[in-house]
């Protein structure tokens, strides 16, 4: 009798257990399905150092996971709430600190953070600096930083420093040195540009490249002559000349230097600054 009773209780409890499990499992599944993984993103609000300590020898694997988490969320979306931008930025920062060599993280950082503008430009540069310091065989992180300074921060001088630095370090990025020199000149550092290009000229073996660098040096020497002329004009008349021809008309320069980089051999003059 007692045995029958316990058997019945067992079966009743078993059936209740199974039914509850099935009902709840279906409900949980339905609720989970509503959550699209690409719509949510989260990051542990801890410093990368703590993650590094906790992950030990699996730090690099954790870096892959964090990057994957960010990239799954980012997908092909263009816009996202500010809070999620912050989370993605944290994930990038953590991943980069755990593995400061992985180019895919570097690429994603450049592809997203600076374009969100505001503080994210500097945050992106801060992360890219990690890659630039570690990937000493690669010119791209330095180029990304230079680009961000030029395009987002409008800081030609700093941009030129990065571009000239990577041109010095990497054979493949020599042509970026020309761009760096141009930005340095725009930033008011013509003498630095000439000095840099002269070093580059001495270090280059390719004849075609040497010829191009020599042309740029000649153009910059012309810029330097014009800048000095403008300086003297300002000193004499209290304002910059409206056109470059005024320099010859007032006798400050005998002739205007020729610009070998342009078909008409003329320099562009805007707002008191020379461009070539």
């Amino acid at each position, binding site marked *: 009798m007692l045995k029958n009773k316990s058997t019945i209780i067992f079966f009743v409890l078993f059936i209740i257990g199974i039914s509850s499990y099935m009902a709840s499992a279906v409900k949980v599944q339905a609720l989970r399905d509503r959550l699209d993984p690409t719509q949510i993103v989260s990051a542990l609000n801890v410093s990368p150092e703590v993650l590094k300590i906790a992950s030990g020898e699996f730090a690099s*694997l954790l870096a892959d996971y964090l990057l994957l988490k960010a990239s799954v969320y980012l997908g092909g979306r263009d816009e996202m709430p500010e809070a999620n931008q912050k989370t993605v930025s944290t994930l990038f920062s953590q991943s980069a600190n755990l593995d400061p060599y992985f180019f895919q993280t570097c690429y994603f950082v450049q592809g997203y953070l600076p374009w969100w503008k505001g503080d994210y430009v500097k945050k992106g540069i801060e992360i890219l600096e990690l890659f630039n310091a570690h990937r000493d065989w690669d010119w791209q992180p330095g180029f990304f930083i230079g680009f961000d300074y030029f395009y987002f921060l409008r800081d030609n001088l700093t941009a030129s420093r990065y571009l000239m630095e990577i041109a010095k370090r990497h054979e493949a990025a020599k042509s970026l040195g020309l761009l760096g020199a141009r930005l340095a000149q725009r930033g008011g550092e013509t003498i630095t540009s000439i000095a840099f290009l002269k070093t580059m000229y001495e270090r280059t073996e390719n004849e075609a490249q040497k010829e191009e660098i020599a042309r740029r040096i000649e153009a910059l020497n012309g810029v330097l002559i014009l800048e000095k002329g403008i300086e003297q004009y300002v000193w004499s008349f209290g304002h910059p000349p409206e056109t470059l021809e005024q320099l010859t008309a007032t006798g400050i320069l005998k002739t205007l230097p020729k610009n070998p980089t342009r078909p008409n051999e003329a320099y562009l003059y805007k707002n008191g600054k020379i461009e070539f």
Partner: protein
Amino acid sequence: MNPIWLITKITFKEGIRNRILFGITLLALLLFASNVVLTNLFSLEVGKVMVDLGFAALSLAGLSIIFFLGIGMLSQDIHNKTVYMIVGRPVTRAQYVMGKFGGMTLLLFVVMLILGFLAMVSFGIGSALRPGATMPRNFSWVSLLTTIGFHFLSLLIVLSVSFFFTVISSSIYLAMLFTFCIYFIGHSLETIVKVLIKGEFMEVSPWYVGLMKGMSWLFPNLSAFDLKANLAYGLPYDGAYLIWTGLYGCAYIVIMFLLTLVIFKQKDLC
């Protein structure tokens, strides 16, 4: 036959026959298989992801062997008193421990070799199935073997630590816990000291930094043996670094081993 070699062989065979080894191998195989799937989620430097996954499988397999087989077998011998049957014969306690360590070393070596080969196979399959996937920069077999070799050396350090704690503790679980703590500290202490010295996140007194530096003399710096970044990114291997780190690892193993022998000789097995 030399008793040490005899015990080494017996331990190795015992390990090979153990069912735990099949479980560990299965886990490693699953991780290698995940190489093929997970690498598809990355588009740049896929070789690096393969290295990460491959070495994660090697680490997990090696640590599982140490924790479940190494500590388990030695602990069972001591606590089930089966060690009497061996040390009662013309075999000294030192020879017994040396034999056991040798057997586990051999087992780890063979498993690393097999899993290393399987990791390469999974790299090959992963690369073939994923167009555009290339091997890591400056990849060479020498760099791969060097990285695996140093990984193996770090596992031997953990093994020597596990033997030490198995002999001094009365419980298998305590031995596992202590060994895990040393493994964790070994991989983290260097970062902790660096963070403390930098002082970016917290300000600590100099004596605390000194204490942590002192601890780094006591605990093995296991992160020094991690050369995965060199393999994954084609970074140069510094000869002097390899020699000194190799010597450091061997010296630590010898010291731990000698301490284990001394304690095991004094231990009351009754």
